[in-house]
């Protein structure tokens, strides 16, 4: 009797579960990327572009179906709601993997869009962020011929899952948010340039202070940024030696730095870089000897030291701190109340020293 009562009770409890309001996959449109621009006509309005993938039955068939929607409104949330009345299915942001800020928009402020994306529960933290040039809408409109899944070409490039270019700085959404708030660490974003309807290029990066864009790193500086912040970067460098050009390919790389404040003298940041490399291109026809490799390494060291030092000085002068030197200074000093003031004071006098070691170890397949 009692058992029966319990079972009936359990069955009754299942009753409210019948209609869960989850929508099936064929009733959904998956937003793969969001683009944000300043409106052309009203400078205080925002133009939201969504790149939407339409679910396909057979994943092996390679015909991607994409829909691009654009809507202008006062807030991002409102623009998304207005777009909902222009499509037939539910918009799902759960698979949104990229957020592109138009160049004009990034020059004013990014903070409101960061706030919106952070607050929304369905937007992932591991979304890739970038600046789109000339506008986010045009970047999202690019459809490379090699693309099989919507927006995948952008994602493969930004995540280093596909191509591994030393000129691309991958920035996750949570990383960007952290950089916007942290004292002593400033945001940077890779720039995606739409070259044509079928091609984009990512090789530069914008530096921000806490408010807006302050500096554009050229491809070389971007590559140095990657060299100094990632371990084992896949790249190559050119070097002039004895009046002709050589190129070497980096196999292992490692970089670290220390902020030094000698009692007598100016504060400086010392970078130590270690590269193990192999010769990739030799324009002369001479046979490579061991001594030659050593000399080439020394020439490469001198070249890198000078170029990286210049690049670091330029970045430092721009007033942005994408490397997080300020945070490192604070993290290694225990005088919590005065450390950031000290850092700000010495920041103007800061010098850079670069100490690189290039070991050209192999000559490649031929001597």
């Amino acid at each position, binding site marked *: 009797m009692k058992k029966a009562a319990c079972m009936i009770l*359990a069955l009754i409890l299942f009753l409210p579960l019948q209609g*869960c309001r989850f929508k099936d996959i064929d009733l959904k449109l998956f937003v793969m990327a969001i683009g944000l621009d300043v409106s052309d006509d009203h400078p205080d309005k925002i133009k939201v572009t969504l790149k939407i993938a339409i679910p396909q039955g057979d994943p092996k068939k390679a015909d991607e179906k994409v829909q691009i929607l654009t809507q202008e409104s006062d807030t991002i949330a409102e623009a998304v709601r207005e777009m909902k009345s222009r499509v037939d299915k539910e918009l799902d942001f759960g698979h949104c993997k990229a957020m592109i800020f138009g160049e004009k928009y990034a020059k004013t402020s990014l903070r409101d869009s960061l706030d919106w994306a952070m607050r929304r*529960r369905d937007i992932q933290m591991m979304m890739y962020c970038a600046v789109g040039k000339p506008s986010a809408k045009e970047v999202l409109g690019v459809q490379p011929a090699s693309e099989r899944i919507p927006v995948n070409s952008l994602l493969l490039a930004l995540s280093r899952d596909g191509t591994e270019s030393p000129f691309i700085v991958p920035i996750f959404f949570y990383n960007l*948010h*952290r950089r916007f708030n*942290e004292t002593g660490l400033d945001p940077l974003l890779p720039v995606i340039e739409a070259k044509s309807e079928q091609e984009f290029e990512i090789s530069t990066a914008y530096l921000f202070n806490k408010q807006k864009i302050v500096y554009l790193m050229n491809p070389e500086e971007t590559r140095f940024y990657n060299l100094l912040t990632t371990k084992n970067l896949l790249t190559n460098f050119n070097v002039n030696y004895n009046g002709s050009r050589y190129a070497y390919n980096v196999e292992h790389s490692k970089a670290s730095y220390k902020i030094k404040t000698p009692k007598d003298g100016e504060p400086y940041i010392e970078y130590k870089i270690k590269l193990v490399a192999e010769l990739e291109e030799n324009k002369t026809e001479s046979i490579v000897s061991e001594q030659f490799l050593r000399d080439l390494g020394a020439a490469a060291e001198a070249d890198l030291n000078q170029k990286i030092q210049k690049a670091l000085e330029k970045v430092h002068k721009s007033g942005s701190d994408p490397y997080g030197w300020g*945070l490192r200074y604070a993290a290694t000093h225990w005088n919590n109340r005065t450390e950031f003031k000290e850092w700000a004071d010495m920041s103007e006098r800061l010098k850079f020293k670069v100490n690189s070691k290039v070991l050209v170890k192999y000559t490649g397949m031929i001597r």
Partner: protein
Amino acid sequence: MVKSKYFYYLFLINALINIINFVPRGLISHRFSGAMMSVLIAVLIGTLFIYLFVKGMSKFPQKGLPEILNENYPRIISSLMLLGHVVLWYTAGLITLLSFVDVSLRYISSDVPSYIIMIGFLVVVCLSIRLTSESIMYALEVLIVLNIPLIIYFLLKGLLNPYFSWDAVMQIVTYSWTMPSYESIAQATFIFSGYINLALFNRVFKNLKVRHFWLIGVMGFLILLISFLVPIGYQGTVGIERHVYPWFTTADALRTKTFIVERVLFMFYFTYLTLSLVSTIVHWHVALEFTKGIFVSKKQRTSPKRSIEWWIIIPFSILALLGLKMGQFTLDHLGLMYLDVRFVGEMFMILSVYFTYWLKRRRRRKT
């Protein structure tokens, strides 16, 4: 009867569940004002409390708190003391449930009404708390053994990520010499307070001997550091304060390319779902048995009929459903306030055990 090793599981379940019970949030809000120091102090206090309580309870072999109190005090006093403890234990489970319903709503399905999720949890919990103490201990063991490898995987994933900012962590470590406040110490000691369940589970331990108290201290210290510092390494020293559930945002920032699902968040959610349910079961089981201790019949000192359990479980469930009416900020306050009050409750519990022992010995000497 169970072996002594089950004591460690009681400690571990509380230590692991701290993420749900607002410990990181409490510590993070004090991160510039003494959280690090309070972590150190909490380790000392926590280990000391464990030592004292285990020693104290071993004076009453195979007896739970209800028996100890009912035998040595007049009825009214023992009932009041038990009632106080019931409130504390019930609230512990209630907060875990409420915040997990909140997490489910935020991250998994915002479309399902909250009371349905709560009813689902309540069915599992209420059916399980009626089991014998031994079965609950065995279930606890199985769930912890199953979940710990996953948690270690998440941790390795998190700590080995190149985007994890050790500078941000070190910056907080340099704030170690700031004096802590009472709240932050009380909040940090929560992870050690699994031992207090011994007040009931002492019934089923066969001559309890806890060896390696230092191991508990070291484990507790590491778990505290991890649950406090890892979110800071991902969201930054400043950005972290804006996150409502720091650990779930951190899990969202992790990505696995080749393991089950790409977003670690979902695996993290299910791991913590089982852990928080079993933690609630342990806490409410203690609360249930204590309540039964209040209703022990006066003369025969036999335990009450089993049907009385339902009359305890029904108000438990109704209160939990009413608790859903709480707003986000009320739940926060309740959670943090509970951590503070609980600390006093624990001290009171330890003192009362020693006092009872003293009382008992004096009586015996007199007769």
